């Protein structure tokens, strides 16, 4: 457990090393990046192996930092952090395997990629709100450059929109945190201290601050109607960056809502609860319906991400132990599945056929040309639809059951969203991979043969597939970490009251 902070340090060190190595040889930069990501995954799994779930977060580091403001370098981890740290390790490793073929400015690509990963690890391990915020913003800038430099469709637009949405969201969070600290007379930025300060504020201010902080974070989580950066950003991003964006970056927002907004301002949360729940439910159905009519393959996946993140937000809004632990499970599950879907679309299909238009793909017998991609996508699609045996099933089921106890109607509408998800997933599987079934392999539509799926891609896909099946068959692996963490005093202020 005590080795967890090294995930952060190795990622940043790896970023520098990749930059230096990239100046000499692209292969060296790739190797550095892969080793760094594997080290992060290894540290996460090592910590997981020795983890005994308890309520209180375990302190990993606690040093005075900015004395005059009471800010400390305070890292801590509980089951929720650990889940997301492991997810980050998985997504980072898979992302590097799927960007093995990047040829342009390789060192810089992996340096930015690893810097982003370092920021993400930092957010998941921070126990001081200031430190949390620092890492949260560190993750913004690399995203911009990853997309603007190595992206595809309308990359500069997508990158700028993403950066501005993220930064505007974080500005709201910053305003809320400073407000709490200064007006509440806090002595520092540790979460319990801020919660104590927030409790002294008048109710109206708490409601306003919760709005700032929660919706600031929810912007990055893709909560309807703040989600519009997500599809354009995902589509514009290079494959590895889409995988990270959907896989872990959107989780940063949801994690911020869960770790900071809810426990600090329970009073504010209960005022906003109904609105948040409905926005989440609307997002699930609305994004699903939009995904149903997209003609760009990647946009379908982009909107499906927004829809699935709606489940996370619904779990948080329902605010009982079952729904919230389901939300964490869904963060993990969606991180893995979305990574897989984006890998197939961006790397396996688009970089080979150079088109993502469903109409054009329909004319190709992709299931024969790249069968591995077809099988992977079908499995990932089934997982994404929430079929039993894959991680999406226990996650969404837990959330729906939790939401039912809070408000029946939310669960009903969200369940309709599951049907929509099945519809758009089946449609896209059918159209993209099995459009051209009978007849000859119409390779004539292509002016070049498709290169075979590389070993790196196969490894990355298998890693993610194995994870989703493992968690699908044994969701308790994660739920056993998460449920005790929700017993900590900070979460009890919200989670207990929410259970009828």
């Amino acid at each position: 457990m005590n080795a967890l902070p090294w995930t952060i340090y190795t990622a940043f060190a790896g970023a520098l090393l990749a930059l230096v190595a990239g100046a000499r040889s692209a292969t060296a930069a790739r190797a550095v990046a892969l080793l760094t990501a594997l080290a992060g995954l290894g540290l996460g799994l090592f910590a997981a192996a020795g983890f005994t779930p308890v309520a209180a977060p375990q302190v990993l580091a606690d040093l005075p930092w900015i004395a005059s403001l009471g800010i400390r370098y305070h890292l801590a981890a509980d089951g929720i952090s650990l889940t997301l740290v492991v997810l980050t390790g998985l997504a980072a490793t898979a992302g590097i395997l799927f960007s093995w073929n990047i040829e342009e400015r390789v060192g810089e690509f992996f340096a930015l990629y690893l810097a982003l990963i370092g920021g993400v690890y930092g957010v998941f391990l921070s126990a001081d709100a200031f430190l949390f915020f620092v890492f949260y913003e560190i993750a913004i800038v690399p995203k911009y450059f990853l997309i603007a430099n190595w992206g595809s469709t309308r990359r500069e637009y997508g990158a700028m929109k993403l950066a501005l949405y993220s930064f505007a969201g974080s500005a709201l969070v910053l305003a809320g945190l400073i407000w709490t600290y200064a007006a509440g007379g806090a002595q520092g930025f540790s979460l319990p201290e801020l919660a104590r300060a927030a409790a002294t504020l008048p109710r109206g201010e708490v409601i306003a601050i919760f709005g700032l902080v929660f919706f600031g974070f929810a912007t990055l989580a893709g909560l309807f109607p703040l989600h519009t950066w997500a599809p354009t950003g995902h589509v514009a991003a290079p494959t590895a960056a889409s995988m990270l964006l959907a896989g872990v970056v959107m989780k940063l927002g949801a994690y911020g809502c869960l770790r900071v907004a809810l426990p600090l301002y329970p009073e504010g949360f209960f005022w906003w609860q109904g609105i948040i729940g409905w926005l989440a439910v609307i997002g699930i159905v609305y994004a699903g319906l939009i995904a149903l009519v997209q003609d760009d393959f990647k946009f379908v996946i982009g909107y499906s991400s927004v829809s699935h993140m709606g489940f996370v937000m619904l779990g948080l809004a329902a605010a009982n132990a079952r729904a919230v632990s389901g939300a964490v499970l869904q963060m993990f599950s969606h991180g893995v599945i979305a990574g897989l879907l984006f890998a197939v679309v961006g790397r396996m299909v688009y970089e080979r056929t150079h088109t993502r238009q469903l109409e054009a793909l329909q004319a190709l017998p992709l299931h024969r040309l790249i069968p591995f991609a077809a099988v992977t996508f079908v499995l990932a699609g089934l997982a994404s639809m929430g079929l039993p045996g894959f991680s999406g099933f226990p996650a969404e089921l837990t959330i729906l059951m939790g939401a039912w106890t809070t408000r029946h109607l939310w669960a009903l509408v969200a369940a309709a969203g599951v049907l929509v998800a099945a519809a758009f997933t089946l449609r896209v599987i059918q159209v993209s991979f099995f459009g051209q079934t009978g007849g000859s392999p119409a390779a004539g539509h292509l002016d070049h043969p498709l290169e075979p799926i590389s070993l790196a891609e196969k490894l990355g896909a298998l890693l993610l597939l194995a994870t989703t099946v493992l968690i699908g068959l044994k969701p308790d692996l994660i739920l056993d970490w998460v449920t005790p963490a929700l017993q900590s005093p900070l979460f009890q202020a919200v989670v207990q009251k929410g259970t009828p």
Partner: protein
Amino acid sequence: MNALYADLFHALVPETILTVSALLVIGFDLAVGRRRPLAARQTLAVFLGAIGVVTALVIGLSNGAVGSVFGGAMMLDAFAVAARAGVLALVLLTLGVVTAAPVTRQPAEYVALVLFAAVGFLQMAVAQQLLLGFLAVELASISLYVLAGFDKTRPESAEAALKYFLVGAISAAFMLFGFSLLYGIAGSIAFPDIAHALIYQPMSPLLAVALVMVLVAFGFKAAAAPFHLWAPDAYQGAPTPSAALIASASKLAGLALFWRLLWGGLGTVAGNFTLGHGTPGWLSIVAVIAAASLLLGNFAALAQHNVRRLLAYSAIAHAGALLLGLIASGQAGPGPLYYYAATYGIATAGAFGVLAVLENFGRCQDLADLAGLHRRSPLLAATLLVFILSLAGIPPLAGFVGKFAVFVAAFQMGGIATPAGWLAILAILLSAVALYYYLMILKQALVAAPAADAAPVKVPAIAALTLLAAAALLIGLGVFPSLLLQLVA
């Protein structure tokens, strides 16, 4: 009396060293520089100047805070020592920028003028008296006017100098008028005596006029809206090192002087701007100027295509945040304000340094002129990234901590019950607007491909060292902000 003069001399050692080294710079150039190439003369001048600045910096720091000097004309407290050190560090950075920029025809005179301006800055940092304060501002300003118009080959430089001079002269008139009224009201030119006299003075029309006059002059010095009009033209036309000096050291010195005047001398007529229970005073006026600067600076910067004008509007926006820091320093002390002004100076001088290097290799005015900098010079692109991200306030760079400290201090004045809290929220939200134009610079430098005819860039060693040191400072002070915050506390 002798002891008094000994004290005075002791306090003025840094100024003396700067003056002597300015004379040495000119003398050496006259004696040995005549038949040498310009580049060698410039190196020699900068080298001598830098030695003087470093010596002054070390002596200023080692003498430390000695308190009131020469019957209270100067105040050498912890803040003054820190402000002097900050000003000298920024002047040193500017001298580094001088080596990067194209060589002027009178390099020794240029360096000497920078040093004379620095003497003015040092006096601004310690003056505790109206007359000395005014003289210090004038000494600095007149040097800066000449520095702005130093490039006689370009009409833009002359235009910049003329605009800067005309507006500056008018603001000096305002300042002098305001000071004379203050003297008339309080019967003294020493800040503590003025503060004492004003305790028993109700707010009178005459006092209001005096305050407004002083604030107008201050708004000009800080390039705050609506007194900002000179800034974009001066930044665009002036030689790059001059622009760097105007944007960095000059601003820090101005804030130091006006912090001492407004809170030390006029603190009793600051008024109370709590919403609903306000009493008149200068706080409300400064709050309005801050809001105007934040809004105008950030939104006008969005429309700029010229890098220097963009940096000028960003400077106006930062002036708004600095004024917020000035408002908050009445309660929180000058720590956050000082940290913000010093680190802002480093970042903006560094950005001008990058432009100065580029000027040697072709046009460097429009955003598009930066295209493909990452191919032309990875070093310049990397340091520019640090400078711009620090200006944008991205952690873990110093610009973020500065903003954070200022906003916290502003909020601590009374939360949302005072305009300071609302201004802090406004500034935080506008930082998202600011990110757009900062990213426009970085997009050109780090994403766009270079123009077909763009020459590769070779960065001179001293300039490279300067830029790297500035970037390292921004990272180091961002990660360990207490280093600088402790200096003032």
